[in-house]
């Protein structure tokens, strides 16, 4: 085979890097309303096309169209808008608090609000999310108090996690929000296990796992799909494809598969791809998948197509690896703007009421922040205690930890 050509390594690169002008005009986005809506008990092999398209409801004119439209009442839509606005205002304040030195770290979900907010509305009480660090929308939509969230961010004397965890690593069983891990992907098989447990007990509650585009490359993604596929676990496996994993574009994790949703096909798991910036579309797809799970039809994989509009975290500066204008150029728009426009088109909303709502939401967040700060911030005021560090390592403190706590002077 001396005639064989030299092999070459193929290293995918994003189309645009700093210094180039992002232009997505070549990207085809399916029209809103153009993707069919199969019955929830359709065999997975009959809906493979849904992993290669994008389910959309809101069209450019701001109308909700097609078979996935019409799932939400006017009140629900208005509530959804408000929740997204709250998430955005919360992010803005906490980002600023970090910049002011009130905490060490923060992560925004700017541009991705519709996904968590709409999904949470589709769940029932008792269902359990296994989230990543970018699903604060689940907590806010579930009514978890902003003050508690902020106290976690500040690691203060009222921090529900007692100062132990990195900011944003919330936990609230009561709100169906599993303790966030810093290790990517581990929550995915855990979600499957929780769902299996529910099935073992003959319960009706279901689980939802969350993962980022980049993290689908982690091995635990596979573990989760294998177990979910084999035991037909009542779980929704959500992939938030926000195009970036820190500085790495989604093509590095995705490789040759075209979409992340397609990963489900290797497992016979129905896979849907949805416009993640389209609140009604996210809600409708979530409902569809949740009904499948609840009817014991097994897992569903959902890829949400969105864009990480902000930096990865407060430790990151994206201008080093992607054009500043890319977010603006991104063709699926902003979820808050799009739902707002839809409501205006429906004559349920106006620019004036929106401006007023912005102010109200901000006031609410600021009030919560004041209250939270009265319990301390990372470096000032009351604090989580060093004594607490030794608690909860085990259910009961064993002798060696008691000795160490004493040695530490607590």
């Amino acid at each position: 085979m001396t005639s064989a050509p030299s092999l070459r390594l193929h290293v995918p690169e994003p189309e645009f890097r700093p210094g180039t002008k992002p232009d997505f005009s070549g990207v085809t986005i399916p029209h809103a309303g153009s993707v069919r809506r199969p019955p929830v008990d359709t065999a997975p092999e009959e809906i493979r096309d849904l992993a290669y398209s994008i389910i959309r409801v809101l069209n450019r004119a701001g109308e909700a169209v097609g078979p996935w439209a019409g799932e939400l009442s006017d009140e629900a839509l208005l509530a959804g808008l408000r929740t997204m606005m709250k998430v955005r205002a919360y992010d803005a304040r906490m980002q600023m608090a970090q910049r002011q030195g009130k905490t060490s770290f923060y992560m925004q979900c700017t541009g991705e609000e519709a996904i968590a907010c709409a999904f949470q509305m589709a769940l029932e009480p008792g269902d359990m999310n296994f989230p990543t660090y970018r699903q604060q929308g689940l907590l806010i939509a579930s009514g978890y108090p902003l003050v508690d969230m902020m106290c976690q961010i500040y690691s203060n004397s009222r921090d529900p996690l007692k100062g132990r965890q990195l900011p944003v690593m919330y936990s609230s069983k009561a709100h169906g929000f599993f303790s966030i891990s810093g290790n990517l992907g581990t929550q995915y098989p855990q979600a499957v296990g929780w769902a299996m447990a529910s099935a073992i007990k003959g319960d009706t509650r279901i689980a939802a796992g969350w993962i980022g585009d980049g993290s689908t490359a982690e091995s635990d993604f596979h573990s989760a799909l294998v177990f979910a596929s084999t035991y037909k676990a009542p779980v929704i496996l959500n992939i938030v494809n926000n195009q970036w994993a820190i500085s790495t574009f989604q093509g590095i994790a995705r490789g040759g598969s075209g979409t992340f949703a397609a990963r489900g096909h290797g497992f016979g798991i129905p896979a849907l791809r949805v416009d993640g910036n389209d609140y009604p579309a996210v809600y409708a797809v979530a409902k569809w998948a949740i009904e499948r799970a609840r009817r014991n039809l097994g897992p569903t994989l959902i890829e949400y197509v969105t864009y990480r509009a902000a930096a990865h975290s407060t430790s990151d500066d994206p201008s080093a690896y992607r054009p500043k204008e890319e977010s603006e150029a991104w063709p699926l728009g902003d979820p808050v703007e799009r739902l707002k426009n839809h409501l205006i088109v429906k004559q349920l909303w106006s620019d004036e009421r929106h401006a007023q709502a912005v102010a109200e939401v901000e006031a609410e967040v600021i009030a919560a922040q004041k209250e939270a700060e009265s319990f301390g911030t990372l470096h000032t005021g009351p604090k989580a205690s060093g004594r607490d560090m030794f608690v909860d390592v085990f259910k009961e403190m064993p002798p060696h930890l008691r000795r160490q706590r004493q040695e530490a002077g607590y």
Partner: protein
Amino acid sequence: MPTMSMIEAIRDAHDVMMARDDNVVVFGEDVGYFGGVFRCTRGLQQKYGRNRCFDTPINESGIVGTAIGMAAYGLRPCVEIQFADYMYPAYDQLVSEAARLRHRSANDFSAPITVRMPTGGGIFGAQTHSQSPEALFTHVCGLKTVVPSNPYDAKGLLISAIETDDPVIFLEPKRLYNGPFDGHHERPVVPWSKHPLSEVPEGYYTVPLGVASVRRPGAALTVLAYGTMVYVAEAAAAETGIDAEIIDLRTLLPLDTDTIVASVEKTRRCVIVHEATRTSGFGAELSATVQELCFYHLEAPIVRVTGWDTPYPHAQEWAYFPGPQRVGEAFRRVMEA
């Protein structure tokens, strides 16, 4: 009282707990229909149904990861890793998840799982069926680590492990499954039925975690051992005629330092024996602890007798295994020092 092999005792512990508590579920590779490659879960699927005992895909991270999810839901999974040598793919779920969950969520969630795994060599299993990774667990805060050495303890400790609200690593010395083993591979195997600790009560009883057992009282030196090495130490004591006090640690973490200190203060000499590679093995922690707590009582250096810092070889298994001769030599060295 019935006598049982260690395999039967472990099977029985599962049976007792599955009958007592609907939330106990058992799974792992080949664990369901077949009952495990060492048969420790034999018959459980048939008795409790596929819902409570089932085969899993070959994915150790998935086994532990789903167990954690189930535990967070409220179940008490007791899972098997087919050999301890194959726990590495699950190590992230054990260290970063099971061990940390209660602490990081401030008691909002917890992971009361038991992870059983056959451990140790002596069966010509070579490097991937012989490892003793206990030190890789004792370094991880939030995990409890248990190593039974006989049927009675195995059943009682496994019941305690399943009932414990913390994640427990349960290491089963496979060389002891069918009989006590003193390292004399050249002699015929003695079955469990000839050993008093194979008398295992029926039904429920516990052996508490965190409590060592003095297996041979003695005045000359203290031996800290666990699993197979307990019998090797007994053989060495018999063969050297040295009056060793042999402590079977049973639980490595939390460690029963009271029993250890009392013994070393009495004997003033200490030998530590384990099968794992030496460097950074659990013997290092034992040595450091004894030195810290008993420095002024020690009359001789603490000696470690361990596996060598090499992979566990196939043909040279008995050159690797810290057998009675090596342990006996250590006894002599410590007595002469």
